[in-house]
């Protein structure tokens, strides 16, 4: 009853907005640019940077317009009630992300399971010809990511207690650890490609290794961007104890990326070690 009575005083309908449409206009050329870029034999191949630039520009405009509008709404209308729905939506989004990873891991598990009957893999797992990928870097990476998850949680806790300076420091640690992880990953990729000639198209293991680590790395970079935005907003003083959905969202995303990495390390890296069986 109180909810209904509250509602009667003012009905908020969301304002019409052009930004979703602009954003779609910006996204639309991107697949065209991707196809042109990756298909050098096409007659209009040379146009891809222009199309990418055009689409990317509109995408950026659409995103910024949308974000600005949301922030403006948040400051003019009390929308703390909305945190509930945002939280739920974010969890569902992470679930769908997990489903994508499960498709890739499903591919890996299936191939491991059937390796013994596949002559092309040498009837064994890991397949003949798989380079010995040293565990030192990924093991160190695991430590770095787990540590960054902890510092991220400490930042969140600090924010909850209202200690903004501490929150910012912990967040900065998290960002640095994330960058270290990405750096190590990039070093490892370069090492494998140049030293072993181990590329996505060299073997099945190369294919699945680069897809999973690449897709995970892409998520790490996305997570870093989110954390960076959160840091910038803290610098601007946007959050308080009650209202800091972005901090929640970014930290969940970061933990999610961390958990996925544990799977990557324990299933993929340990799975393709020669001593694993």
């Amino acid at each position: 009853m109180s909810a209904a009575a509250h509602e009667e005083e003012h009905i908020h309908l969301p304002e019409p907005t052009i930004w979703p449409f602009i954003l779609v206009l910006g996204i639309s050329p991107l697949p065209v640019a991707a196809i042109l870029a990756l298909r050098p034999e096409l007659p209009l191949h040379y146009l891809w940077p222009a199309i990418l630039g055009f689409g990317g520009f509109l995408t950026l405009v659409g995103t910024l317009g949308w974000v600005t509008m949301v922030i403006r709404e948040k400051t003019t209308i009390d929308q703390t009630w909305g945190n509930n729905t945002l939280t739920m939506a974010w969890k569902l989004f992470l679930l769908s992300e997990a489903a994508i990873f499960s498709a890739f891991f499903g591919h890996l598990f299936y191939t491991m399971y059937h390796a013994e009957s596949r002559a092309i893999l040498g009837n064994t797992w890991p397949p003949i010809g798989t380079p010995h990928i040293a565990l030192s870097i990924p093991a160190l990476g695991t430590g770095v990511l787990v540590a960054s998850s902890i510092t991220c949680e400490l930042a969140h806790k600090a924010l909850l207690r209202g200690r903004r300076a501490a929150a910012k420091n912990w967040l900065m640690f998290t960002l640095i650890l994330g960058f270290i992880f990405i750096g190590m990953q990039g070093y490892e990729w370069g090492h494998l490609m140049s030293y072993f000639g181990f590329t996505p198209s060299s073997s099945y293991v190369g294919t699945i290794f680069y897809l999973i680590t690449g897709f995970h790395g892409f998520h790490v970079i996305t997570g870093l961007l989110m954390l960076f935005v959160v840091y910038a907003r803290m610098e601007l003083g946007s959050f308080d104890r009650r209202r800091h959905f972005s901090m929640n969202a970014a930290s969940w995303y970061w933990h999610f990326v961390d958990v996925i990495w544990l799977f990557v390390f324990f299933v993929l890296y340990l799975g393709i070690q020669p001593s694993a069986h």
Partner: protein
Amino acid sequence: MSIILPEPGSDAKGAARPAEAPIYIPAEETPHLHKEYKGILRWLTTVDHKLIGVMYLWFAFFSAFAGGALAGGIRAQLALPILTDGTNATMGLNAGKALLSPELFNQFIGMHASFMIFFAIIPGFAGFSNYFVPLLIGARDMAFPKMNAFAFWLLIPSALLMICSFAFGSTGAGWTGYAPLSTRTYSPNIGVDMWIFGIHLAGVSSIMGAINFIVTMSTMRAPGMKWFKMPLFCWTVLIQSWMALIGTPVLAGVVTMLLTDRLIGTGFFDPARGGDPLLYQHLFWFYSHPAVYIMILPGFGIVSHIMASFSGKHVFGYKGMVYATAFIAIIGFLVWGHHMFSAGMEPWLRAYFGFMTMLIAVPTGVKIFSWLATLWGGSIRFTVPMMYALGFIGLFTIGGVSGVFLANVPFDVQVHDSYFVVAHLHYVLFGGSVMTILGGTYYWFPKMSGRFLDEKLGKIIFWCIFLGMNLTFMPMHWIGLAGMARRIYTYRPEFLDMNRLISCGYLLMLAGGIMLLGNILYTLVAKKRTAGNDPWGVNATQHTLDWETKSPPAPHNFDRLPKIV
């Protein structure tokens, strides 16, 4: 369940309102609550779930005509083929050449399916869900109105990518895009790349829609509307959304792997590098079998509403219906292998998939019998939506029974890739999904537009579509059992007469579709708004909130949020 709409100044405990009493102030007195643009900008900028729902429905309608035109090409080719023994049956139309080349014929098949699935049926249901879920749960809009608009607009580039791929040799690998046929070796054109990106965009749209519906129904139900007071249509959309949320990313994942195989040179599905084409099928059907239920569950909800409304009763076994729907959804994720019985699989896995598939018949049977029990003893009104609902029960049962046939491994291996499978899937998707979409269109058209579609013409259209549908797809069972293969542009001479009969059935359906389009346009332009809050006079028995607002509803749906007791 009864609904209390608090009157201004009353305490919120007002008595249940008689169904025929108007509750809303007339339109000109409605306070101007929000900004709105005029003309085309109104549609481009809208975040109103009702306008977005209407756009989804128009989009689905035109996609259905595009997909139908492709089906027309397929039927024309099969009615006027060059037969396998060299007989020219083209009736002199094309100087001894087939109307469609074999490659073009396969592209028509692939695009017909892609269009009907991704741009006709799924957006059709998304249209109804968008329009009616917030109304039925007593909310003012979806939880994320901007994301809602975004999800709709994404479908446009997705459809454009797919339709434009025709100019660049679109996918001849069918809507399933099986590797290795869809790999660069066998499909070197960029058509498949465009098709994959089209799937990506449609998939993102579908995932966003699913998140939006789950959150909306979880957090925005009217005060007092407990989970088990939520109308069945909402339940089916909720369960469908969960399926889309978990299934669609897997499809996105598998087509991404196909794309990297094509463009970057990875070897996921390349046997020469240790990849496995069969795995494509496993991952593809892990999404695409649940997609079958994504394409039918909201239809179950619509039929439940229509059946109950025009029987003058509550739907029989409400909770049983909810549980049956959830059970179908769960089992639906565990049966994908029945699409691959002839593709190579361990015997125990075949037995498992066959058994689980037959198990789905149980909750489906629960639903069919609940609908029959809803009819039992009711005072039935044969309105057009009711005719579609009744037609649905008959046709969907046929499709369900042939599905149980196909779940039998030995039988499936015999008829695999024959027209029997085509007949089965069209009885489910046309006899099931499309009939419910058409029924829903007639049922809710007065609510959405304030105008009634012509009942007499509606019955003629119904019979055109119903008879045309049976004339088209029933003989496919017979020629399939006799050995006619699907996805091939020609066939043996003995199937010629039957194929021409089937093409006549297509023309009958096409006539029905064109009359429907004409009737809708005429009604929107020439008829006056005469529909009241409860145009069918059903809310005395139904008590659903869609009949508690104006037709069409004001932008804010309800002047006062209803309270359910």
